[in-house]
């Protein structure tokens, strides 16, 4: 697989019948992956100059949605150093599906029938070591501060969701085709 093909691939100018071969080559060859990353970063930088391309893959529309949402997850106080991830998640727009809820002890989610699990915790499978017992007593914040989640953090969570849905699609009895959750984000 030569670099010219990779370049064509990054630019979207390639024979689709060869897509499988290109993907396999990229998956198998770290050097080609490095080349791909480099070309991709160059492309993103050029696009960013041309039309203010969003290097984080979060469309403006979705970013507005995010800004209007209550806080999803509260990042720690450590300020976000925003780097340019070469592999920012393609489905960044699915952030809109992540329904936000007030969280943690004392919040609304601790009320209602679901709380039965916490009120009557099922028996621990293994005898808990002291360290584990200590961990289970972790004190979470009482309420969510009104902070905006950083793009990097948001993408990481999205990546987890996508990977979860992929595994779900291959495991157990499916009461719901898992990928509908990925496709069917809320449109506002």
């Amino acid at each position, binding site marked *: 697989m030569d670099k010219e093909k990779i370049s064509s691939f990054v630019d979207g100018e390639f024979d689709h019948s060869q897509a499988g071969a290109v993907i396999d080559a990229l*998956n198998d060859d770290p050097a080609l992956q490095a080349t791909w990353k480099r070309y991709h970063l160059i492309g993103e930088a050029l696009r960013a100059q041309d039309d203010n391309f969003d290097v984080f893959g979060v469309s403006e529309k979705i970013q507005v949605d995010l800004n209007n949402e209550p806080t999803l997850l509260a990042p*720690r106080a450590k300020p976000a150093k925003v780097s340019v991830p070469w592999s920012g998640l393609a489905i960044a727009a699915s952030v809109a599906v992540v*329904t936000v809820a007030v969280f943690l002890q004392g919040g609304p989610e601790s009320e209602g029938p*679901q709380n039965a699990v916490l009120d009557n*915790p099922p028996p621990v499978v*293994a005898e808990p070591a002291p360290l584990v017992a200590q961990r289970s007593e972790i004190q979470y914040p009482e309420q969510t501060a009104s902070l905006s989640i950083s793009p990097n953090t948001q993408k990481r969570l999205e990546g987890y969701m996508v990977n*979860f849905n992929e595994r779900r699609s291959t*495991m157990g009895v499916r009461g719901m085709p898992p990928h509908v*959750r990925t496709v069917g984000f809320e449109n506002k």
Partner: protein
Amino acid sequence: MYRLLSTLVVGLMTAQLGAAEPPAELLQRMHDATRMLTYDGIFIYQRGPSIETMRIMHRYDSGVETERLISLSGPRREIIRDGERVTCVFADDQEVMVEKNPSQKVLGLEFTQPIDKLATFYGFSSAGQDRIADRAAQVVAVNPKTPDRYTYKIWIDEQTGLLLKSVIIGGADEVLEQLQFTQIQVVDSMADAMLQPEIVGSGFTWRFDASADETGDQSDMGWAPNWMPAGFELQDENIETMATSEMPVSHAVYSDGLAMVSVFVEKLMDNGDSMEGHSSMGAVNAFSRVDGEHQITVVGEIPLPTVRQIAASVAYEE
């Protein structure tokens, strides 16, 4: 040979007509039919105030499942699963994401996971008959025996065994998400062209996930939950390089045969953000916390308190 087997399976599936079929057998038939039949259908998916229409094209040929899911409302989006990879195409973002399909590792599970095992943790009952997409359906209620998982109500095509409608119900009888076909047909074969993405154009950004065990970095193996709801067993565990994380991620998968839980652990970068708290996506909940230098996130198709409890129990063991 596979085609012959497939034909036999279809024959068996379609032969089992009748209203007296026990719920557990219906579920087993649905489990097999959704994977081993070739079909094309349109359905409505509802989660909270959001309602979307989608089309699913599913082919089973020579032992390989290929599936294409496309949005018919809102932004144009497609997800194509085949034996090797999952390709997500998002026209609204002009992006394509390709990830290796992990199903090869767990392929055996999906056909051998006995419905009988589910009966230990869920009660099955018949909830009558109905008509969905102009097809006669048997309704099966799947009720958990403990409050740490969800209730499912599933409409199953009497003739083909396919899922026609599904509702996932949380505490206080809250409908978390539901899906209902408006039309569906089983076909003998499906052309390759029907399973190819249509909305990819020049200018799309392609992103790849160098997946599963390729990093060779096993340093974060050893993180595991010390508590799981009864019946959830470890199904798969590996270190993955995700498109969205700069560090390799330890990913362990647990299932009781119906619900599934993922436990993700990754080392935090010096300049990385951490996250603590929860989020939800329909019936899927996620809870994140930080343990020293590691980010722990549990994602599961189970109630939030259960997800939280699992996340709190995750610890590193030498």
